[in-house]
C-alpha cells in the first residue's frame, strides 16, 4: 500500500505536469476564499476594536448607573414615577454587595487652567462627583493622603495623552512618563467660569492642521462668550467664580474629571445659587411639570446616581433588584453587551452576504475541480494501467486522484487565505487613512486603531477543513472512475 507521503509527492508531481490547469483551479478556489477571509478578517477586526475600545474607554468596572424612570409622560397629571432620594441612596448603601453610592452631580462649567494644552482646546468643561471609593480605586494612595486641603482630582487620560506639536501643527501622543507626571500636580479649578469653553486651538480644514489661536483671536472669542449675557448685571454675576485648589491624585480612562461627592455637592450648590441670583428668581418651583409633564428634581432628589459594587461582585442581581424598584440600571457590562449584540447583528448580515457570494464562487470552483480531475483521469489512463500492473490497488489509485483534488483545493484555500489577509490588511489601512484624514478632533485620533484587521484562526481552520471536504466531494466521482479503469484496456491503449 502506498505511503501517505509518497501519495502526496506523486500527486504534487502530477499537479506540476499540468501547471496551467492547476493554477486555474487554485485561482478559482482562491477567489471565493478571498471574499470570505477578507470580510471575516475585517469583521473580526472591527469586533476586536469594539471590545478593546469598549473596555478601555467605557465606564468603570463594578459601576452601575442608576437613573429614575425616564419614560415619556405626556400628561401633567401623571407625575414622574420617582426620583432617587437621599433616603433611597442611604438604603442602597446598606446592601451587602454595594461598596458606595453617590448621586450623579455634574458641576458645569468648570475651568482647569492646567489643561490649556488639552487637544479639545477648551480646558475642562465639567467635573463629576464620584463616590470616594471610586476615587480611591484610581488614586495613588500617597497623593491622596498628601492632598490636604486641596480637592483630590482624577483626570481622564484623554485630557493628557496628547500634546500640541508646534512644528507639525498636530497633536502627538504624549510620552507616557509625562502623562504619569500629572499625578501629584497642583491645579486650580474655577467653578462657574464661562471661559471654560474658550478654545485655544482652531482646526484648519484646508491645511489639515491645528493652529494655536493668536492673542487677538483669543480676546475676540472671550468677548464673544461674554456677550452671551444679555445684561450687565448677569455679566457681573457670571464673572464671579469659585476658585478651588486641587491636586491630581490619579488618572482614569476616558475624558472625565472626577472629584469626591462632597466638594462636588458644594460646588453644585454654589453654582445653583449664583445662577438663581443672576436670574433673580427662586431656585426651583415646587411643581413645575413643564411641557412634557416632567418636573426638575427638588432638594435631596436626583435623576441619576452611581452605585459602586464591591470588587468581584456579580452586578446582575443588584441590577435586577434596582430594576424591580422601577429604576433603569445599566452596568458597563450589560450596556456594552447590548451594544456588542447590535454590532454582531450588523456583522451577521454582512457576513451572510459575503458567505453567500463566496459560496457561489466556491461552488463554481468545485465544478472546476471536478472537471479538472476528470480531465486528469482521462489523460492518465496509461499511467493508471501501469500503476495497477506494478501493484497499485484500486484504493491506491483512488487515493492518488483524491489527494490531487484535495491538494488543489487546499492550495487554493491557502492562497485565498493569504490573499484575503493581504486584502483585508490593505483595506483596513485604507479605511484608517481615509477616516483619520477627516478627523478634526485630535482626541478622536486616540480612538483610531492602527488596524482593523484581525486573523480569525478558527474560521481559517474551518475553511481548510471545509475545502478538504468540498474537494473530496468534487474529486470522488473522477477518482472512483480512475480506480475502476480496466488496466488491460489502459495498457492496450499505450
Amino acid at each position, binding site marked *: *500500500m*502506498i*505511503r501517505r*507521503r*509518497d501519495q502526496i509527492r*506523486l500527486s504534487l*508531481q502530477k499537479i506540476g*505536469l499540468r501547471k496551467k490547469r492547476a493554477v486555474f483551479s487554485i485561482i478559482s478556489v482562491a477567489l471565493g476564499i478571498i471574499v470570505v477571509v477578507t470580510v471575516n478578517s475585517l469583521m473580526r477586526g472591527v469586533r476586536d476594536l469594539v471590545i478593546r475600545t469598549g473596555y478601555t474607554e467605557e465606564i468603570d468596572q463594578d459601576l452601575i448607573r442608576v437613573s429614575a424612570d425616564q419614560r415619556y409622560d405626556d400628561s401633567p397629571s401623571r407625575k414622574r414615577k420617582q426620583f432617587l432620594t437621599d433616603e433611597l441612596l442611604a438604603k442602597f448603601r446598606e446592601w451587602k454587595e454595594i461598596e458606595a453610592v453617590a448621586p450623579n452631580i455634574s458641576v458645569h462649567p468648570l475651568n482647569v487652567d492646567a489643561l490649556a494644552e488639552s487637544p479639545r482646546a477648551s480646558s475642562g468643561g465639567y467635573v463629576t462627583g464620584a463616590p470616594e471609593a471610586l476615587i480611591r480605586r484610581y488614586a495613588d494612595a500617597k497623593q491622596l493622603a498628601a492632598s490636604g486641603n486641596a480637592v483630590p482630582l482624577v483626570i481622564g487620560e484623554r485630557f493628557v495623552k496628547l500634546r500640541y506639536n508646534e512644528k507639525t501643527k498636530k497633536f502627538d501622543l504624549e510620552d507616557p512618563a509625562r502623562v504619569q507626571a500629572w499625578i501629584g500636580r497642583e491645579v486650580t479649578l474655577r467653578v462657574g467660569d464661562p471661559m471654560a469653553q474658550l478654545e485655544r486651538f482652531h482646526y484648519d480644514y484646508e491645511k489639515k492642521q491645528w493652529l494655536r489661536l493668536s492673542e487677538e483671536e483669543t480676546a475676540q472669542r472671550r468677548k464673544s462668550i461674554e456677550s452671551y449675557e444679555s445684561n450687565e448685571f448677569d455679566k457681573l454675576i457670571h464673572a464671579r467664580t469659585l476658585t478651588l485648589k486641587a491636586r491630581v491624585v490619579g488618572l482614569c480612562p476616558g475624558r472625565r474629571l472626577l472629584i469626591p461627592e462632597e466638594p462636588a455637592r458644594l460646588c453644585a450648590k454654589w453654582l445653583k445659587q449664583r445662577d438663581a441670583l443672576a436670574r433673580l428668581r427662586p431656585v426651583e418651583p415646587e411643581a413645575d411639570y413643564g411641557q412634557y409633564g416632567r418636573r426638575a428634581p427638588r432638594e435631596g432628589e436626583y435623576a441619576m446616581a452611581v452605585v459602586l459594587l464591591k470588587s468581584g461582585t456579580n452586578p446582575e442581581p443588584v441590577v435586577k433588584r434596582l430594576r424591580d424598584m422601577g429604576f433603569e440600571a445599566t452596568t458597563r457590562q450589560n450596556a456594552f453587551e447590548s451594544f456588542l449584540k447590535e454590532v454582531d447583528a450588523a456583522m451577521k448580515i454582512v457576513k451572510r452576504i459575503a458567505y453567500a457570494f463566496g459560496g457561489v464562487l466556491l461552488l463554481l470552483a468545485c465544478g472546476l475541480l471536478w472537471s479538472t480531475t476528470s480531465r486528469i483521469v482521462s489523460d492518465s489512463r*496509461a*499511467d493508471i494501467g*501501469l*500503476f*495497477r*500492473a*506494478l*501493484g*497499485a*490497488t*484500486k*484504493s*491506491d489509485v483512488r487515493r492518488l486522484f483524491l489527494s490531487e483534488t484535495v491538494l488543489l483545493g487546499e492550495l487554493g484555500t491557502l492562497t485565498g487565505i493569504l490573499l484575503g489577509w493581504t486584502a483585508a490588511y490593505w483595506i483596513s489601512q485604507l479605511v484608517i487613512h481615509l477616516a483619520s484624514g477627516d478627523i478634526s478632533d485630535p482626541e478622536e485620533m486616540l480612538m483610531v486603531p492602527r488596524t482593523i484587521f484581525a486573523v480569525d484562526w478558527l474560521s481559517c481552520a474551518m475553511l481548510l477543513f471545509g475545502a478538504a471536504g468540498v474537494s473530496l466531494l468534487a474529486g470522488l466521482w473522477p477518482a472512483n472512475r480512475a480506480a475502476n479503469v480496466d*488496466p*488491460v484496456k489502459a*495498457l492496450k491503449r*499505450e
Partner: protein
Amino acid sequence: MIKLHNVSVTYRLKSESVEALRSANLDLAEGSFVAIMGPSGSGKTTLIQVIAGLLTPTAGDVIVNGQNLRQLDDRAISEFRNRTIGFVFQFFNLPSYYTALDNVALPLVFAGVSETERRDRARALLDEFGLGDRAIHKPEQLSGGEAQRVAIARALVNSPKIILADEPTGNLDRDTGARLMELLQKINRERGVTILLVTHDEKAAAFAQQTLRIEKGAFV
C-alpha cells in the same frame, strides 16, 4: 510455479463472442525460461494478463506461486503483482515525467518501501545494468535499448519470482534486441527468476529454454 487448468477467456465484441484462450493448460517450473510464440491475435498477451491477475479468466484456474488468483481480492492480487511479478512491455511504459531512477523505483512506492531504500535499490540495479550515469535522465533522453534495460531493472527491483515480458524486443533493432535477450537469459540463470517471454521473433525465442506455440487461444 505457474499452473493453468483449462483456462478460457471469452470477450464479447458487440454481439459476437471471441475466445482469446480456449481451455489452455500450462505448467511451468520455477526458474524456467519459456518463450510463447504465435501469430498476432493468438492469445499470447491475454495469457500474460491472466497469469499477472490483470484479467480474470471466464473459466479455469490460474495458480501462480501456490496462489489461486481467482480467490484473491483486489488488495491481495495487487500485492501479488507487486511482489511476485515483474513486467517488461514492448513500448517500455516508462512515464516520461519520471527519471530513470524514479521509474525503476516505482513498484517499491506501491510496496510501501521508504524513499531511501527505494533509491538505494533502484540505483544498485541501474549500476548493475550499466545505467548508473543515466539515473537522472528522463525516458526521452534514453536510447531504445537503455529504456528497455531501465524497464527490466524496474521489473526486477522488487525481487519478483516471475518476469512477464511482452514482446520486449519488438521495438528494438536486432543487435540491441539480442543484447537484451542475453540480459534476460543472465537474469534467469543467475537469479533463478522464471521468465515467460511472449514474442513472434524466432531469434528472441531462441534464448529461452523451451518454446511453446499458441494458435487461436490454444497451445499446439
